[in-house]
């Protein structure tokens, strides 16, 4: 098997953040970034230097990076970033407030799980963007419609992962707590919720990924702020360097948001003895 030596090395190198292992990881991370830039340069020159494509040369690394530096000094850009992040936060918060208790209850009561399984799986498979026309009919502002879309996109992973976390709770802990005289609500609050925190954080991380993906197309539709809006605007004005720079920015911000949840996840991942 090809995979064994690699797994073996991982085992050896896992324990402790020793200097060598950190270097090893950073080295490969840099290699990945280098490869990414190389592919961008090579792909860019192959495609955008061909006759008929010169107008798109803004997508090449140098103009894009220059435009990116320009973005950093631009008020409209930062306002858009903030508008987008705010929408994601509000949408996920609503989804979390609805989805967390539902997920806990569904995981806790088997009958509720059996009842909700089909509708949840069904609703989960509907592309969040297909709710847009409905959202625009129901909500009078684009802003609320976007909150609705993000909530619709993220509530399912939150419900499903939380419920899964609850079902994974060690039955010994439950027996122990019952033996110690725990009532149902105490089982929920003192055992089930803390034991599910890693799964809840995973659900938030998934939700954030989905929300960030849904956000940009949602902002194409009628709204006049946010990263989706300025990217559309750059296309209409044919500023392709700016367009490329905004794409890079979207990737960066998503990467940072995801990374911050990953850090929180690490703080809550206990080793089960």
């Amino acid at each position, binding site marked *: 098997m090809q995979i064994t030596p690699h797994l073996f090395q991982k085992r050896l190198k896992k324990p402790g953040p020793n200097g060598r292992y950190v270097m090893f990881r950073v080295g490969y991370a840099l290699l990945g970034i280098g490869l990414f830039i190389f592919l961008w340069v090579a792909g860019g020159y192959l495609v955008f230097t061909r006759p008929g494509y010169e107008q798109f040369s803004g997508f090449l690394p140098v103009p894009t990076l220059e435009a990116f530096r320009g973005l950093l000094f631009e008020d409209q850009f930062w306002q858009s970033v903030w508008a987008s992040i705010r929408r994601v936060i509000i949408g996920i918060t609503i989804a979390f407030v609805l989805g967390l208790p539902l997920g806990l209850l569904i995981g806790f009561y088997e009958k509720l799980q059996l009842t909700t399984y089909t509708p949840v799986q069904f609703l989960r498979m509907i592309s969040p963007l297909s709710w847009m026309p409905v959202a625009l009919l129901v909500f009078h502002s684009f802003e609320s419609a976007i909150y609705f879309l993000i909530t619709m996109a993220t509530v399912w992973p939150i419900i499903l992962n939380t419920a899964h976390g609850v079902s994974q709770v*060690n039955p*010994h*802990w439950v*027996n*122990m*707590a*019952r*033996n*110690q*005289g*725990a009532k149902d609500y*105490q089982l929920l609050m*003192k*055992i089930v919720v*803390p*034991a599910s*925190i890693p799964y809840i954080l995973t659900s938030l991380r998934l939700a954030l990924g989905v929300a960030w993906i849904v956000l940009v197309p949602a902002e194409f539709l009628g709204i006049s702020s946010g990263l989706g809006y300025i990217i559309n605007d750059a296309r209409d004005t044919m500023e392709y360097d700016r367009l490329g720079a905004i794409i890079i920015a979207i990737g960066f911000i998503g990467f940072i948001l995801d990374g911050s949840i990953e850090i929180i996840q690490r703080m809550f991942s*206990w*080793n*089960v*003895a």
Partner: protein
Amino acid sequence: MTIQMEKVCKRFPQPAGKELSVLEDVDLVIGEGEFVIILGESGCGKSTLLNLMAGLLPLSDGEIRVKGTRVARPHPSRAMLFQQPSLLPWLNVEENIVFGCKLRGEKENLAVRTAQLIEIMGLSGFEKVKPHELSLGMAQRVCLARAMIGHPQILLLDEPFASLDTITRSHLQEELIEFWMVEKFTAVFVTHDIDEAILMGTKVVLLGGRPRGILQAYEVNLNYPRDIASRGFFLLRSAIIKKLRESFDGRQEG
């Protein structure tokens, strides 16, 4: 607290609509302050019997009474110790020990009692340590402290030392007996280890046969600490082995 079991039966539903009868007509009286061992091979229903006493499982038939009251649900006066330490990984040693008292709102003298138990169990210096950093033996000590902190009148132990190495196990056996002699609770201790049974119990109850029931009960009239090389120990050990063999042969013929 005496525990009275009358015609206790337990059947588990099987997938094919059939039932698996695990315990049939178990009659047993456990007197206050006794240290009773339930001895039997793996799968003979020892854990099931203990869980019935704890109130974690419903009875199929018969009755279990503790001090005259029917057992229907778990109660903190009957504390339980499991084979695998069931510590909560997000709490440190001290927080794990007081977990049950906090649940029940028993705050009186809690700090003093916690400090006492930590001392007795040899956990000093480990108060703030998280469970995954403990050895199995230490973790089981924490579980024992957690079980004992609410002054339960009955302690139910389900092979608590089975996954420990021999040396740690013999330490813990001694410590548990010393602790029991001071605190004077009633103990029901499940094991499949004959030596452990005779080392610790005031009474050894053999569980087995088909259908599973009580084969025989032995009083152990030996002083603590017991000597595994003594004549009394040897005689009792031989008697138990003989009985187990008879029951095994009977089963093969039947």
